[in-house]
């Protein structure tokens, strides 16, 4: 990370690893799984040089557990996995939500369910990322569509996790993870890095789960004199298990509030030629790349198409989608699943415009041609 910009040819997984290092991540615990293994391999070489720790765990349950432990000790921590491993991590992701432990989980989506298609892309884990762990909980899920985004969204994921004391899930798919592309690495000083707020009060005054206006209590690293109780049980402001309804309700509501009152900060999307679009394609991940190409070709044919690319998948970017729905006659949602985000689009659209879907689950990428064909069909 020198002072000047460096132009590199890099793989998506490597860009995630670089992004993590740039964001200050110094702990990785993981387990080999295609197609995310390169992240672990890359960090196993790089982390020791920076005084960080790489541990290969015995499975994904343990990986997520180690990440939580490291984060509580005060280190920015992450893990990376794919479908089957992501399923195993769910219980501990729930723990991280409940105990408000900042951490980043990268899920490189492959075909499923079960072992599925280890070497083929898919977008089947979008709903799992939202609702995979049990219980009512908010969660932030990002989706990268290019190698530069792998870098920038990993940095962003760490910043969001530190700011809101919550686990962040970064979704990649096999295409983006294994694609090699040019990336311009920004100098370290240009990157905005956010570190968790630590308590300024003396240890005896510290209330670990206090209801602050932001909804995010300061977090003391273990071992610095701030002795407090961390538990997966629903707890009061001091971290002790509670059965009182006047404490349980406010606690769960605070978990939601700390996310919902910051939607403008969390929501990220990009629009491309949507000003006068009659049809807006809403896409994320590798499909957004095909969609962009399809929009360019549609415009060449005189069809008024536009693209809304979602980078924050959850919480769902209601305002951006509503805007797209109001502006155009038709909204098209191409996805490499049987329709997960399109359900959300339909919910938000609420009958304003027509919602069309294009679903593909055969392990291959949705091509620009397929999207273009659908655009032509819908507009004629």
């Amino acid at each position: 990370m020198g002072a000047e910009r460096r132009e590199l040819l890099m793989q998506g997984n490597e860009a995630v690893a670089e992004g993590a290092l740039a964001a200050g991540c110094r702990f990785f615990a993981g387990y080999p799984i295609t197609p995310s293994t390169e992240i672990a391999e890359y960090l196993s070489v790089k982390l020791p040089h920076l005084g960080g720790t790489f541990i290969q765990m015995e499975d994904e349950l343990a990986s997520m557990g180690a990440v939580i432990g490291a984060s509580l000790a005060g280190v920015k921590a992450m893990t990376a996995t794919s479908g089957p491993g992501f399923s195993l991590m769910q219980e501990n992701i729930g723990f991280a939500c409940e105990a408000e432990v900042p951490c980043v989980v990268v899920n490189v989506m492959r075909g499923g369910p079960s072992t599925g298609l280890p070497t083929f892309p898919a977008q089947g884990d979008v709903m799992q990322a939202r609702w995979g762990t049990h219980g009512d909980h908010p969660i932030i899920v990002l989706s990268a569509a290019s190698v530069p985004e792998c870098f920038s969204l990993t940095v962003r994921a760490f910043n969001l996790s530190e700011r809101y004391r919550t686990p962040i899930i970064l979704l990649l798919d096999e295409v983006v993870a294994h694609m090699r592309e040019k990336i311009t690495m920004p100098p370290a000083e240009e990157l905005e890095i956010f570190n968790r707020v630590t308590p300024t009060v003396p240890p005896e005054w510290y209330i670990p789960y206090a209801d602050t206006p932001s909804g995010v209590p300061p977090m003391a690293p273990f071992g610095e004199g701030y002795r407090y109780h961390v538990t997966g049980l629903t707890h009061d402001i001091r971290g002790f298990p509670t059965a009182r309804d006047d404490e349980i309700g406010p606690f769960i509501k605070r978990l939601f509030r700390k996310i919902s009152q910051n939607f403008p900060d969390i929501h990220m999307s990009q629009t491309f030629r949507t000003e006068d679009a009659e049809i807006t394609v809403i896409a994320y991940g590798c499909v957004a790349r095909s969609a962009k190409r399809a929009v360019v070709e549609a415009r060449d044919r005189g069809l008024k198409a536009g693209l809304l690319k979602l980078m924050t998948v959850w919480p769902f970017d209601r305002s951006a989608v509503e805007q797209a729905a109001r502006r155009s006659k038709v909204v098209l949602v191409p996805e490499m699943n049987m329709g997960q985000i399109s359900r959300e689009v339909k919910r938000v659209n609420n009958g304003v415009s027509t919602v069309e879907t294009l679903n593909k689950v055969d392990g291959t990428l949705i091509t620009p041609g397929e999207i273009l064909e659908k655009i032509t069909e819908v507009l004629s």
Partner: protein
Amino acid sequence: MDEYLDRLNIYASRLVSQKEYFVPGHRACQGCAEALALRLVAKTLGRNNIVACATGCMEIVSSPLPLTSWKVPWIHVAFENAAAVASGIESGLKALMRKGRLPRQKINVMAMAGDGGTSDIGLQALSGALERGHNMVYVCFDNEAYMNTGIQRSSSTPFGASTTTSPAGKVVPGQVTWKKNMPEITAAHNIPYVATACSSYPFDLMEKVKKAADIEGPAYVHILSICPTGWRIPPQLAIHAGRMAIETGMFPLYEVERGKYRLNIDLPELRPVEEYLRFQGRFRHLTPELIEKIQQRVREEYEKLKRKVEMTNED
């Protein structure tokens, strides 16, 4: 004829059954001794055998649609639960036989996984199955790393080996922990039979698998499976590497039958470990001091094993 010969404990290449249940055409790498070991195991367990196979090299190479190398019922399960699924199969068969829906007969139930699927992610399921005492054979094909995903270390990777997640450098000499002793862990469950084997000693391997199947209750066979791709050795040296592993004492061949230890190949003098390490790319970076460290450990472990043999056999 086969049935008759099965009852004899004679092993000679001409007397071994010609019938194969793990057949050619699979996609294992050149010189894969794991596929060889699996072939011998499948041959020994015969036709009346149901296999629960965890994710791993042997699952991937043996089942690319529309081909299969399996001539027996075979179930690919998740990474962590071969032992659990095999438990279910065994219990299910037992229930069917008890109710008279299935004629009483000997059906082997075999669970198989690699070293990762056994000593890392599958350990909990294995321990549970051994504790419950299902009548099954669990075979661990130990190629000492996660070869299927591209040579990442496992807890079964030997000290000093360079893998993609334990890369050797100037400061860290590859894997820094010692190989997890899976045979001892399973023996500690007090199961009737535990054995180590290697496909470089085919008759010994087959005899052990046969014993494991014949014994009532859970049996565990740990097979050192040489992986030329992951160990960075020429494919033609796979069998040689297995022999060296045994002759240097890196991987002693022994069995624990109802608590009694027995060394199957008891060498009067071990070869220096260097003879095993030096031709393998994964150990190329080792310094003489590190080799000495490994030598010392091997010697100690071998002595410990010999003491166990003496202790459990005195009357």
